[in-house]
């Protein structure tokens, strides 16, 4: 991945960084979503 990614101007670590923050954001979104849904019952 390394050299090819650099040529295309994409950081070679982008997958790992966005994979981390993306899943963390998804977890937080899901927690808040389920909390509000259960509150309404």
């Amino acid at each position, binding site marked *: 991945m390394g050299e090819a990614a650099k040529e295309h101007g994409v*950081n*070679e*670590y*982008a997958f*790992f*960084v966005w*994979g*981390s*923050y993306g*899943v*963390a954001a998804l*977890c*937080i979104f899901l*927690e*808040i979503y389920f*909390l509000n849904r*259960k*509150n309404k019952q």
Partner: protein
Amino acid sequence: MNSELFRLAAPQAFFPVAGKMLPWFSFLAGALALAGLYVAFFVAPTDATQGEAYRIIFIHVPAAWMSMFIYVMMAGWAGFGLAMNTRLSGMMSSALAPTGAMFTFIALWTGALWGKPTWGTYWAWDARMTSELVLLFLYLGFIALKGAIQDPARADRAGAILALVGVVNVPIIYFSVQWWNTLHQGASVSLTRAPSMAAVMLLGMLLMALAAWMYSIAVALARLRRIILERERDAEWAKLQRSTA
């Protein structure tokens, strides 16, 4: 002062107080997270050895700190409830558990995605990672055990014992990198010596850690309100509360 605290220990009295505190903590969590993410991605420089991959630290370390701290809080409340026979304490420990489990999962997940580009592997059975995985199972066990017992008083007692037994795992996680040979590096930030990272990087990490704190408090308060209403559903005030909500 003391009598005021005792009054708040009643679920009925704490319910509106939690409701009033909730928006403040939510606002602080959002504001601090925005500031932290801005520093993390736009202000903090690239790391000399790890390049951009190190930016995972801004979510990984705060999540790992929270995963341990929430467990200590959860076990503390559970133990307090066991000793003092207070109803609210058991509810507080229940309110904290899912958030703690979520932060543990985030710490493990981001750790795996950080390990691959730096160490060369997603996972290794070293002491730090294994004990953090045990922490996730302790959280899940606590949630499952409490969910499996119908009577709330008995559920609180059983959960408290599990939480207190598991609390020995927290110092094991924290000190594992000092006690044993591990793949995981030592702590960059500790109370005993100066942090071994550039000031701007440290600022970003501390902002994110504060945001995680505020988020945890906000979510735990919201979940506590839900648990209070559930457990007190036969009380007149709770019926009234539900009809107006």
